[in-house]
């Protein structure tokens, strides 16, 4: 082989320059260890509801194994239209305003690529889901992060947005309930954001994948606010609330022209989402209330447990109100998030994700997913207590 042949240099610049997800690095370490309690899993520990699995088998037997319409089965889009109208308060025409995708992941990519010209700025808030910045860059956009803060309960305010908006800002990307902070926005927060969006004439992509998982108050969607539906791409999917991560099924709802634009990319790159997963989604929508409520009740109990356990351990933590993550503040120990997480993993065999995986402003925080059984949560909190005590002892030994 030619020594001067550097393949790395030939990789597209925007791909080369984006670091691997911090989550992946951490995964590589955790996966070499045994008997680890993992609070670093961003997916439900529940099984996909049995009726969904059973009817997927039936669909397979019946031969639902072919390409579907690019947009997805019309029957599914009709069911989605009804569900979104009822749950989120916005009407979408199943014929041309709903696109079924391979997870919200694909929908995010489509939405960004459909809207962004090179150099357009995308406002988004950090800490946030690990993919946002990279997806904006892949779409040749300019990511502009707005930092949410623990003192505001990690909520996004108009003032924060005003400080970062520019004439080149084209899109605002939102995710509430939020991964990794568990923050939600209420009606008033959203109204202020809607006013900001109208004033600056922006488009919005709203990733509401955790919408069903709120514990203190019902979710309010941006698309239910006046005028917002017509300038928003609404994203949702089945991974979280239905515990269907492996099915890879999501959808985008947007005004017809935007749906058509996303569909163009989807058609050429993906063709259609898996036929079986679409059948599974249709079954999942047949009785969403029961399936989801059981899981939400259990997550709420765990949320209460972990919030109270962290408080007793003296770790400040914004009360998580949605999704299944707690995001405690570990700054007083003077360790970086990564060092803390690594030591905690090595010494106590508990995996949590360093806050920096979700943006630089996650430094000093950890993401603890409570999508894990109570027994593991209890044991993890016991070990955390032991670990914190050790850190305290070291600290006093170091200063005396």
């Amino acid at each position: 082989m030619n020594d001067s042949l550097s393949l790395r240099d030939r990789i597209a610049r925007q791909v080369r320059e984006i670091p691997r997800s911090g989550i992946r690095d951490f995964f590589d370490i955790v996966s070499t260890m045994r008997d680890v309690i993992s609070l670093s899993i961003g997916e439900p520990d529940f099984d996909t509801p049995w009726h969904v699995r059973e009817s997927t088998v039936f669909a397979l037997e019946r031969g639902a194994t072919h390409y579907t319409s690019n947009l997805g089965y019309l029957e599914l889009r009709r069911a989605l239209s009804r569900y979104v109208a009822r749950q989120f308060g916005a009407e979408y025409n199943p014929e041309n305003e709903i696109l079924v995708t391979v997870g919200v992941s694909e929908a995010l990519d489509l939405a960004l690529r459909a809207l962004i010209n090179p150099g357009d700025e995308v406002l988004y808030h950090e800490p946030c889901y690990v993919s946002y910045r990279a997806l904006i860059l892949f779409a040749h956009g300019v990511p502009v992060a707005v930092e949410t803060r623990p003192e505001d309960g990690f909520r996004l305010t108009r003032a924060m947005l005003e400080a970062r908006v520019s004439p080149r800002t084209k899109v605002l990307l939102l995710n509430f309930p939020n991964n990794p902070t568990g923050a939600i926005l209420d009606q008033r927060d959203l109204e202020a954001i809607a006013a900001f969006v109208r004033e600056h004439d922006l488009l919005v992509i709203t990733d509401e994948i955790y919408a069903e998982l709120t514990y203190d108050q019902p979710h309010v969607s941006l698309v239910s606010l006046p005028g917002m539906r017509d300038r928003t791409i609404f994203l949702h999917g089945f991974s979280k609330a239905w515990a269907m991560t492996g099915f890879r099924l999501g959808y985008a709802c947007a005004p017809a022209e935007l749906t058509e634009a996303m569909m163009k990319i989807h058609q050429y790159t993906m063709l259609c989402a898996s036929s079986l997963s679409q059948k599974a989604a249709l079954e999942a929508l047949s009785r969403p209330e029961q399936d989801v409520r059981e899981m939400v009740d259990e997550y709420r109990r765990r949320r209460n447990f972990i919030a109270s356990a962290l408080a007793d351990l003296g770790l400040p933590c914004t009360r998580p109100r949605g999704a299944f993550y707690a995001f405690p503040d570990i700054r007083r120990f003077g360790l970086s998030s990564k060092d803390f997480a690594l030591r905690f993993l090595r010494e106590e065999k508990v995996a949590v994700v360093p806050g920096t995986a979700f943006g630089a402003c996650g430094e000093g925080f950890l993401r603890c997913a409570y999508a894990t059984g109570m027994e593991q949560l209890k044991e993890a909190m016991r070990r955390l207590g032991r670990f914190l005590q050790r850190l305290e002892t070291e600290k006093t030994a170091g200063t005396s």
Partner: protein
Amino acid sequence: MDPAAPMDGTTVSGSTLRTVPVRLPANVDHGTIMDELLKILANNALESRETIARMLNLPVAEVEARIAEYERAGIIRGYQAILNEDQLGLDKVTAVIEVKVTPQREGGFDRIAERISRFPEVRSAYLMSGAYDLLLFVEGRNLREVAAFVSEKLAPLEGVLSTATHFMLKTYKHLGVLMHPETPDERLAVSP
């Protein structure tokens, strides 16, 4: 054994060893029939009072008081472990018996049902709609013992018209718990 008992909180799992707690059926609106505390206990009666208190955002003393109240009121009637008896290889058979009875004047079905329920061999007893009236789960050491119970105790009772006895061969699921090894957690250890 107490097969297929309805979710009445009388038999609860000792499931601290299990990472997968018993799940109540999702198609019933437990919100209106059972409070959160009872749901937790029905899933795992060994859950510590401290943990329950945290899960419900209540003081420990309040949790204890409410459990005591449920016990006093007879809503919680006991705590049992859920056993995989097949695995124990016990000298034991369980029969499911359908019984037709004539309701009695004044007592209706209750009097005869209670009379039958008092036999220690009868582990569970239900009043049913449909082709027969009472459904019993009866235990004995062997077929002969159960047959003797039916022919000597049950069938001769005044009011019992007929019985049909079925023996249970294998338990797949008991009180909401699958008896055979569950699939391991296949999730990756870290995910976004």
